[in-house]
């Protein structure tokens, strides 16, 4: 807690005051936290540190959903953690207006609405009071459970859901209007990251939206980020992770433990592209001084979506997108040729000047 206060450079005034003496300092440092907590209770929608609005979301459904889609809804809620209602109860008679009315006092800004029409399930992304609404048709989806089943060692510890996911939007470069605003929507779906103050240990999940220009579909993936030190043998890594005395019975000397090669998997060369030098220590193994390899493991849900409709209001209002389909296609084709050169430019939301790191400290 203290560290956050101290490190937050916008919170400089309060922490500066707290630097006078230890005992006093402790007390004073606590104060802002309690104040912040009160503030949080009153104005839950405001970031404690920066005072910026935290985007919060509701994930709910319109109409009756079959079981699998209900699971998908729950997975989406989990994905949107921590700023979402994980156990949002909805009733059949609740209409959209009810949600809007509830949303504003709670500071909920984004809606993810699942529905199951005759053709294919739809997922609507909407901003709360005003819109716009992006209606996506879910062409294919797999639940988090399905993905966990497909993996040998599924990994989704509870801690990774304590922070918002990073959002990576890829392939949206140089696209026309509906996608531009779509990208903006997703940038503001999660709290922005300030690169100067962010703690890397809070970046544990990533939400990837990749636009496939040929098929005009959006791949929606959710991964967990795992960091592994480069050049450390598996045995040492395990020793550090498990904090257990290793089995040394077969070894003649302690040095064998370090020098002896293990299984083939440990000799696999780490991809240079996936290596990062960390700015800060994340855990015992991934220290700032060393290089770490980024490993992603899917945690689901997985979706393949097609943007079918954009409305200016909240599930109402002018239809912005499908009318201009013909024009859009032409415009897209023109832009595609230009964009193919610098194709894989990802748009990561960076440096928007707010911090989302405060939550994990409590």
């Amino acid at each position, binding site marked *: 807690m203290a*560290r956050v206060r*101290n*490190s937050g*450079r916008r919170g*400089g005034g309060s*922490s*500066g005051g*707290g*630097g*006078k*003496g*230890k005992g006093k*300092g*402790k007390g004073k440092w606590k104060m802002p936290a309690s104040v912040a907590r009160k503030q949080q209770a009153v104005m839950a929608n405001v970031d404690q540190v920066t005072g910026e609005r935290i985007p919060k979301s509701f994930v709910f459904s319109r109409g009756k959903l*079959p*079981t*699998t889609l209900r699971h998908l809804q729950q997975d989406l809620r989990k994905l949107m953690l921590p700023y979402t209602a994980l156990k949002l109860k909805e009733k059949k008679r609740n209409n959209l207006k009810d949600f809007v009315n509830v949303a504003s006092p709670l500071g909920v800004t984004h809606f993810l609405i699942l529905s199951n029409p*005759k053709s*294919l*399930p739809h997922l609507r992304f909407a901003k709360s009071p005003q819109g716009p609404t992006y209606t996506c048709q879910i*062409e*294919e*989806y*797999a639940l988090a459970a*399905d*993905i966990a*089943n*497909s993996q040998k060692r599924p990994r989704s510890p509870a801690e990774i859901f304590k922070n918002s996911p990073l959002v*990576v939007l*890829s392939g949206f470069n140089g696209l026309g209007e509906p996608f531009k605003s779509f990208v903006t929507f997703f940038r503001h779906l999660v709290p922005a*990251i300030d*690169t*100067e*103050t*962010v703690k890397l240990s809070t*970046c544990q999940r*990533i939400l*990837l939206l990749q636009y496939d220009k040929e098929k005009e579909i959006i*791949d929606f*993936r959710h*991964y967990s980020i795992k960091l592994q030190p480069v050049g450390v043998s598996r045995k040492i890594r395990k020793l550090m992770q498990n904090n257990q005395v290793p089995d040394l019975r077969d070894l003649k000397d302690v040095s064998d433990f370090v020098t002896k090669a293990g299984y083939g998997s440990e000799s696999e060369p780490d991809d240079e*592209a*996936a*290596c*990062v*030098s*960390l*700015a*800060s*220590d994340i855990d015992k193994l991934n220290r*700032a*001084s060393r290089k770490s390899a*980024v490993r*992603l493991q*899917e945690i689901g849900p*997985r979706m393949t979506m097609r943007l079918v409709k954009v409305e200016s209001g909240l599930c109402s209002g002018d239809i912005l997108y499908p009318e201009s389909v013909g024009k859009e296609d032409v415009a897209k084709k023109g832009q595609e040729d230009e964009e193919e050169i610098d194709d*894989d430019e*990802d748009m*990561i939301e960076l*440096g928007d000047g707010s911090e989302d790191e405060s939550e994990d400290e409590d």
Partner: protein
Amino acid sequence: MAATVAAPPPAAMAAAPGNPHKRKKQPKGKGRGNTGKNKKLKGPDDAVRRRRKPSSKFIKLLEKRARDYNSDDDEEVDHPPPRRQHAEGGDAAVDGDDNDDQEAPSSEEEASSSGDESGEEEKAAVTRFEQGCRAFRVAFTKIMSKKLPDDPLGPILSAHKKLVAAKLAEEADEHKSKGEARKEKRIAAEKGHVIPENHINNKEKMLIKVATQGVVRLFNEVSKRQTRKGLNPSRTKALGREKTLSVPSNQGQKGQASSSFSKHIGKDEDEPGWAPLRDTYMLGSKLKDWDKVQDSDVAKQTEVPLDNFSDDE
């Protein structure tokens, strides 16, 4: 009458080719007599003559037919030749059926007038009745003793059988349609749901790569910003200030600056978290350092933005 007269010749013609074969089998000349009578029958056109002569023959024939009709195979094996003969005669009778049937009643009418023949007729009728009873009994016992086939529908009359079959078919149809409906419903509920493959295919690999790139870029950016930021306190540190409180923004700098192993370990101990929880808390000179750290941090906090801006611009 003209029709009756016209009919016989084909009957005789039909009987004639059939006879030669059977004659060989039959040792007795009775067949011949028969044929002869037939010829005779065919020959004279006088109605009265025809009535009388055939009547006796036809009575015999009818008797035989009645016997044959009422009898069951078992009982009348006694005299097969007459039966056979009768069968042969039957052929003729069948062929000339119209003729016989028309003439039989007339002959019986005549027979009723003559006493002898009527008595014979009555006798035949009685036996016929008795034999019919027996036949019925035999038939009934036969039916009852019959082994039933393993029909799922059981022993039922054909009409009922049909009805039940139709009903069952309908039911099955209904069941099927219900099952189909359920299946359709399930498919509708599962539409779009795809169970992922166990291995990571190329597309997923590509997506992971893209996501990894994104993460790497973010981390690099963060480390660039934060280490640059961390350089500033190092200047203040160069002035003689120490810091013990681990500040994330300073750690990158520490990583660069920490050359001595002991320092590194010290950092490890600092790492776990809140200062008062640490073992080294309030020990020795660190108390003093605490203040200084804050000062340095304050200094940093004031300095950093400016520095960063200057760096950026």
